[in-house]
C-alpha cells in the first residue's frame, strides 16, 4: 500500500494516479477508493438526478483509466519515433539541379545534375552511449537516397526507439566490406548502383553527376563516383602498384588524354567506406516523432579537408583511387544533423 498513489489534486493526469506495479487486488481497492472519493466530489457539484445519469459514463471512463494504468505499469519504457529529412545543399542553399551557378574551392564553376547514394548502419546514439540501429522495412539498415526520387529523401520507418535524450547519430557512408556484396540488390533503383566486378564489385557508395567549366572554357561532364578503389600493376615499376588507372605521375591527363590500349591487371582493392558521426543532441518524446534533418553540404566534398579540382581529376574517378581518396577524406565533414521542421 505504501507505494500506491491516491487521488491527489497535484496529479494533473489521471494516468498518473497509479504509478506502481500494483497487484490487481490493490488496484481494485484503489479504484473503489477513487470512485468513492471522486464520486463524493462530483456529488458536491451535481444534484442527485444528474449524478444518476452521469454515473455510468463516469464508471466507463474510470475503467478506461484503470486499463491504461495497467498498460503503463507492465511496460517500463516509453517509446517514440524518428524521421530523417535528407537535404542536399551547396553553400548553405538548397541544391538547384542543372544550374551552372556554383563555384567550388578550386575555382571550378560547376553544376549538379543528380546525386544518388547509400547510407547504411544508421545508429541513434543515446546519451548513455547505447546505440539503436535504424532499420528499413526489410529489417536492414540500408537506405538509398536519390535526388530524382522525392520519396527517397525521407527515412521514416515507424520504428520505435526508447524515449529520452540522444547525443547524435552515426552511419556508414556506402557499405562496409562485409556488406558490399554484389547482387544484394536485384531491384532498381538500387541495382542500378552496382559497381563493376572488375573494379571491386558491390555498389557505388555515391554517384554525384554534374558538369564544370574546364580550363578551355567548355562545359565538361564529371562523375564523382565513390566506391571500391583498385591497385593496378605498374608494368614500368616492378613491385609497385598504380592507384590511378591509365595515369602516370602527372595529373595532366584531361586535354587530349588517350587511355592506354592495354588494361593493366588489378592487384587489389581498397574499401573506401567511412563512418560519419554527427553529434547533435535531440530528444525522442513518448509517442512522438523526433524530426531530424540530415544535410549533405555538397561543396564540402571538394574542400572540407583537401581541395578537389575537377580540372585535375577529369570526368571519371572510379579507377582513380587518389581522387576517391580526397572524397573519402572530405566525406566525414560533408554531413550535418539538425532538428527538423
Amino acid at each position, binding site marked *: 500500500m505504501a507505494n500506491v498513489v491516491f487521488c491527489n489534486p497535484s496529479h494533473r493526469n489521471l494516468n498518473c494516479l497509479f504509478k506502481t506495479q500494483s497487484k490487481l487486488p490493490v488496484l481494485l481497492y484503489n479504484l473503489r477508493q477513487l470512485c468513492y472519493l471522486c464520486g463524493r466530489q462530483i456529488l458536491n457539484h451535481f444534484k442527485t438526478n444528474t449524478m444518476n445519469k452521469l454515473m455510468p459514463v463516469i464508471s466507463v471512463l474510470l475503467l478506461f483509466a484503470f486499463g491504461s494504468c495497467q498498460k503503463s505499469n507492465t511496460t517500463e519504457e516509453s517509446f517514440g519515433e524518428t524521421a530523417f529529412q535528407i537535404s542536399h545543399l551547396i553553400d548553405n542553399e538548397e541544391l538547384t539541379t542543372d544550374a551552372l551557378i556554383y563555384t567550388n574551392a578550386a575555382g571550378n564553376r560547376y553544376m549538379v545534375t543528380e546525386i544518388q547514394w547509400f547510407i547504411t548502419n544508421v545508429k541513434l546514439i543515446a546519451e548513455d552511449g547505447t546505440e539503436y540501429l535504424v532499420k528499413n522495412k526489410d529489417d536492414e539498415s540500408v537506405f538509398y537516397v536519390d535526388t530524382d526520387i522525392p520519396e527517397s529523401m525521407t527515412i521514416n520507418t515507424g520504428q520505435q526507439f526508447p524515449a529520452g535524450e540522444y547525443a547524435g547519430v552515426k552511419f556508414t557512408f556506402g557499405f562496409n566490406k562485409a556488406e558490399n556484396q554484389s547482387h544484394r*540488390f536485384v531491384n532498381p533503383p538500387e541495382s*542500378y548502383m552496382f559497381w563493376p*566486378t*572488375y573494379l571491386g564489385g558491390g555498389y557505388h557508395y555515391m554517384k554525384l*553527376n554534374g558538369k564544370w567549366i574546364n580550363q578551355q572554357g567548355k562545359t565538361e561532364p564529371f562523375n564523382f563516383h565513390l566506391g571500391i578503389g583498385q591497385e593496378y600493376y605498374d608494368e614500368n615499376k616492378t613491385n609497385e602498384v598504380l592507384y590511378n588507372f591509365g595515369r602516370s605521375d602527372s595529373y595532366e591527363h584531361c586535354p587530349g588524354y588517350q*587511355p592506354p*590500349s592495354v588494361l593493366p591487371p588489378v592487384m587489389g582493392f581498397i574499401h573506401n567506406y567511412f563512418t560519419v558521426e554527427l553529434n547533435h543532441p535531440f530528444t525522442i518524446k513518448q509517442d512522438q516523432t523526433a524530426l531530424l534533418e540530415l544535410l549533405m553540404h555538397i561543396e564540402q566534398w571538394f574542400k572540407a579537408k583537401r581541395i578537389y579540382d575537377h580540372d585535375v581529376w577529369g570526368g571519371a574517378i572510379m579507377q582513380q583511387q587518389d581522387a576517391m581518396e580526397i572524397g573519402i577524406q572530405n566525406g566525414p565533414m560533408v554531413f550535418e544533423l539538425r532538428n527538423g521542421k
Partner: protein
Amino acid sequence: MSQTYKFVPGIFLGFLLFLVACSDKTEIIDPPPAYTPTPYELEIPYAFPTKLNIPEDNPLTVEGVELGRYLFYDGRLSGRTHPDSLMSCSSCHIQENNFEPGVDHPVFEGGFVHGLSGQQTHHVVLPLVNLVWNSSGYGWNGSFYNNNENPNQRQIEDIVTLSVIAPDEMHGDTNRVKALFQSLDGYPELFYKAFGSDQITFKNMARAIAQFVRTLVSADAKIDRYLRGEEQLTQSELNGFILFTTEEGADCFHCHGGFGNPLFTTHLFYNNGKDTIFNDPLDRFAVTGDPMHKGAYKAPTLRNISLSGPYMHDGRFATLDEVIDFYSHEVKWSDQVDPLMHHVLRGGVQLTPSEKADVKAFIATLHDEKFLNNPAYGRPEKFPDQD
C-alpha cells in the same frame, strides 16, 4: 414382386446414363466450363529483379498468355481479312529478329517499318525483351508509364490499343477488330477461359496480348551462363566485358548494365551525344518538359542487340560497328549531353580497333538463341478457328 423391385434402382441408373450419353451426342446440355484461370508462374532468372511491372487488374494466367499469343500473331488484328490488309504485332516484332523487324526485312526496307496506311513510324521499333522488368516507361521517350495522369498511356495494354488504331501501324478500329474476333470460331471460348466472358471486348484483347508480351524473357545468353558460373568467356569476350564495365574502357555499364544489372539496360533516358540540335517532337523532353532532356531517349537493352538494327531512335546506324565507332569517336557536345557521357570532349571513348573487336565479342555473348527459338514465344501452328 420383391425380385422385380430389386432391379428398379439399376434401371433408373441405366436410364440416367442413357440420358447423359444422349446429351453428349446431341449437344443439348453443355454447360460452359468453369472460369478457373491458372496463374502463370513467371520464373525469376538469376540476379534478375523480383519486382515485376504487372498491372493489378491483369495478372498473368496460362489462359490469358495462350490467347495473347494467338492474337499477337493473328493478322486479323488489323480488323481486316483481305490478305493484303493483314497485320498483327508479329508483322514488325519478329521473334528470330529479337522481336524487331530486322534490317533485311522483305517489306520494311532496312528495318524501317510503316503501317497499313503506308505511313512510317516516327521512331524505329524497340525490341520486346524482358519488358516485365521495365518500370521506367515504355517507348523511346517513355511516354507510357505507370503513374501517368492519362490513364490511357500507362501500360503495354495501352500500347497495344494505340498500335491497332495508329495510322502508322495497323490503322484499325477497335470495335471492328472486336467484332471480327467475336465471329471467329474458337476465340470466344478462349476469351471465356482467360477472362470469364465470351463476349469479346477490345480491352480484354489488349490485356491478353500484354500478358503474352510480359512472358517474353531472355535470360539464357552466354553472359547469363557466365554470370551463373556455368560457362567461361573467351579472352576476347572477357576483355570486352572489362572494357564494357570500366569508365576508362568503353564505359557502357552505367546505362547498359553488367554483372549487377543483367537486364543490360536501366530503362532510363539519356542524351548520348548524337546531335547538337534537338527538334524531335517525341524526345524525352516531350514527356518531362525539362529542357535538359531534349534529345534524350531510352537506353535499350543490349540483349540480342546484333539483331536489333537499325540502331538509335531514328535508326541512323545500320550496323553495330557503326554504333561502336560512334561511341568511340563521334560523340557530340551539347548543353544537354548526359553527364555520364564524360568522354564527350574527346569525341568518345577512343577504343582501338582491337578493343572494338573485344567489345563486339562481349556484346555477342548477350545473344540468346533459346529466346529467339523458344516455341512458347513463336507463331502458333494454327489459329483457333482453323481445323
